[in-house]
């Protein structure tokens, strides 16, 4: 026992010394890394940090953290165990992150997809995933035969609503007869529920499945139904849909995470609100947070058209919400009044809570 205590004390001491020069980076994940979607991509970002900084950093993650009271406890534990910068990677961690951040002013917090920064040590970041939805809108318009499209949506938060709207605008441009049916499943990751929703769409005649949830379940269902196509979400899901996968919107957090950890190490970290799309600045410069992966199961010409659209979005030549944009009831969006060119980031896109023209049903209120 004495020996054990001695070893323990020694390792503790060494651990303590090592900590002095290592920057500890902590991650809170909403799902399992093995979800092959959202959380998986954040973990790839964590590994990118380890690769970039090597011995300068030590990373930790906690998986499957529910977004209730449990999140506060787990974020607190990361702060308590000496982490210098903590990434909380789900929208639902917004209040817990801000709550804990107030208790630990010397720890830096980075909250994904949120908008609350209640103290100076909280930054937020998100991706302009909707740029990928524009490309999907084009592909859906050209690939559908039944003109019925099923859209599996998680929660009616602005991020998801923007995706639906961007998709619909591009879809209507190329195929005015196609109709999008949105189903809210109120979960980010529930393979059974996602599969059930996909099957229900297919039974109702849909031949394109779009998802804003994290598991590859919908893709697997599409694969089982010949003639049905689907889009991958968050990570590359092409291996779940050999004959049904059209393209995946892949999240790429690597360069943002590396930037922020570098800033934490050299002391230049300060509060920011970052929003990158296919490129960092929306003008084609730098690696952004959104990638399109594995175009397939469609004619070559369509791939070329999609890639060209993607490139114009990346370079900023094209905007995802060009005017005129009409709301569901036919009213012109405020930003498009006069000589407005496109919908503005603030406040329109960040707080988007309305459907564009052509989508039926209403947002859950």
């Amino acid at each position, binding site marked *: 026992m004495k020996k*054990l*205590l001695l*070893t*323990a*004390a020694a*390792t*503790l001491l060494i*651990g303590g010394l090592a900590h002095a020069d290592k920057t500890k980076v*902590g991650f809170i994940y909403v799902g399992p890394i093995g979800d092959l979607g959202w959380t998986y991509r954040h973990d790839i970002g964590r590994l990118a940090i380890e690769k970039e900084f090597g011995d300068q950093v030590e990373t*930790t*993650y*906690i998986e499957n953290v*529910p*977004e*209730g*009271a*449990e999140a506060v*406890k*787990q974020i*607190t*534990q*990361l*702060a*308590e*165990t*000496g*982490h210098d910068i903590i990434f909380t990677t*789900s*929208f*639902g961690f*917004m209040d817990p992150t801000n709550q804990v951040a107030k*208790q*630990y002013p010397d720890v830096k917090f980075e909250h994904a997809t949120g908008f609350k920064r209640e103290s100076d040590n909280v930054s937020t970041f998100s991706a302009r995933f909707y740029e990928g939805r524009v490309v999907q809108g084009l592909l859906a318009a050209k690939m559908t035969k039944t003109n019925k499209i099923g859209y599996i949506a998680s*929660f*009616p*938060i*602005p991020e998801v609503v923007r995706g639906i709207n961007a998709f619909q605008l591009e879809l209507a441009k190329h195929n005015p007869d196609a109709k999008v049916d949105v189903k809210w499943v*109120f979960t980010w990751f529930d393979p059974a529920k996602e599969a059930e929703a996909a099957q229900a769409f297919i039974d109702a005649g849909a031949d394109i499945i779009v998802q804003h949830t994290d598991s590859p379940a919908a893709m697997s269902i599409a694969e089982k139904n010949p003639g049905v196509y689907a889009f991958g979400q968050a990570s590359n899901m092409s291996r779940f849909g050999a004959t049904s996968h059209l393209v995946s919107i892949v999240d790429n957090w690597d360069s943002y995470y590396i930037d922020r950890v570098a800033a934490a190490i050299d002391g230049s970290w300060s509060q920011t609100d970052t929003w990158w799309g296919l490129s960092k600045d929306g003008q084609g410069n730098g690696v952004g947070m959104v990638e399109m992966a594995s175009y397939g199961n469609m004619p070559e010409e369509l791939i070329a058209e999609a890639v060209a659209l993607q490139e114009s979005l990346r370079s900023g030549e094209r905007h995802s919400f060009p005017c005129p944009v009409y709301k569901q009831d036919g009213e012109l969006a405020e930003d498009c009044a006069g000589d407005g060119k496109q919908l503005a980031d603030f406040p329109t896109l960040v707080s988007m*809570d309305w459907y564009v023209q052509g989508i039926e049903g209403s*947002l*859950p*209120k």
Partner: protein
Amino acid sequence: MITLERRANVTHWTSLRSIGIALIITMLVSVLVLFIMSDQPAQAIWQMLTFPWQGRRMEVQLGLVLQQTAYLATIAIGLSVGFRANVWNIGAEGQFALGSIGAYTGYLLLGSPETLWALPAILAAGMIGGCLWALIPAALRVTCNTNELLTSLMLVYIGGHLLTYLCIGPWKGDPKAGQAETYPLPDSLRPATLISGTELHAGLFILLVAFIILAAILLFTLLGYRLRVAQHTPRAERFAGFSPNNTVWMSFAISGAMAGLAGAVYMTAETGKLIQAENYLENFGFAAIVIAFLGRLNPIGILLAAFMISYVNVGASYIQAALRVDDSVADLIEVAALFSFLGTATLDQYQLKFTRTLRKSRGPEVLS
């Protein structure tokens, strides 16, 4: 051939000895588990034992431990009432959920009050919610003679779905919350935090008081005595002045009310709102079953067991954050504790006899 023979005289010493053996077995298993699951096992063991002094603020860790202890002990002592009398309510998780729902119902019925004076009524509504939910399996047992193990367990899942339904449907709060939840209670209604940044809040005292009251009833009153003798045989139960049906009603009512109170305190203090079940329920209701047995259905034992398991759970979450050891370590240790405590409890009453030949059974006192 190994036989179990009933001990001639059972003393406190034999009980203490078997608890000691169980603790040693649990520790050995824990060490083994940490050796398998961690690449720095010595450090993992050390930090798990001493985590309150390892973090930045000791009161944060102790707060987490005491918070869990309060919930687990409150629910477990309620369950112990039935378990003593062979009434098996394993649905405390559902009664906890209905306690939360009951408390929110109370809040709505009172017209969404803002003052702290409404809190007792809200908590009482939670107790009623948990109690009524628990009376369903009791009624089924008494009227249809259904197995309460099954019905109380099934009602956990129905309770969870009811919670989620209320959050998605009739009581839906801000749709932009990113999860299904109700609108929150005003801060003025929520039990005050005692030390800033910790989980220690006034609600835990309410749980402690409820625990002490029930413990005093069980240990020092005639009712407690009756419930204890009811454990042994239905005949003793009759002599004690209870019909078996009354024991069922009473066991479920008490355990449901305690779980309901825990759920009500949780809703007002921890979350301040209802949230869809998978993000809301922390399995206190199931863990409490383990606590009740680890504590040998004795109030003091339950308190100690709740503290021990909470310490292990929070310690596991600490080393998960500090050393990246998956916190399922806690589950493994909990199960190891349960097995060794139940296993050694047998040795209180029986002793192992090693014999060379198969002897003829000496009657009902020999188990095998």
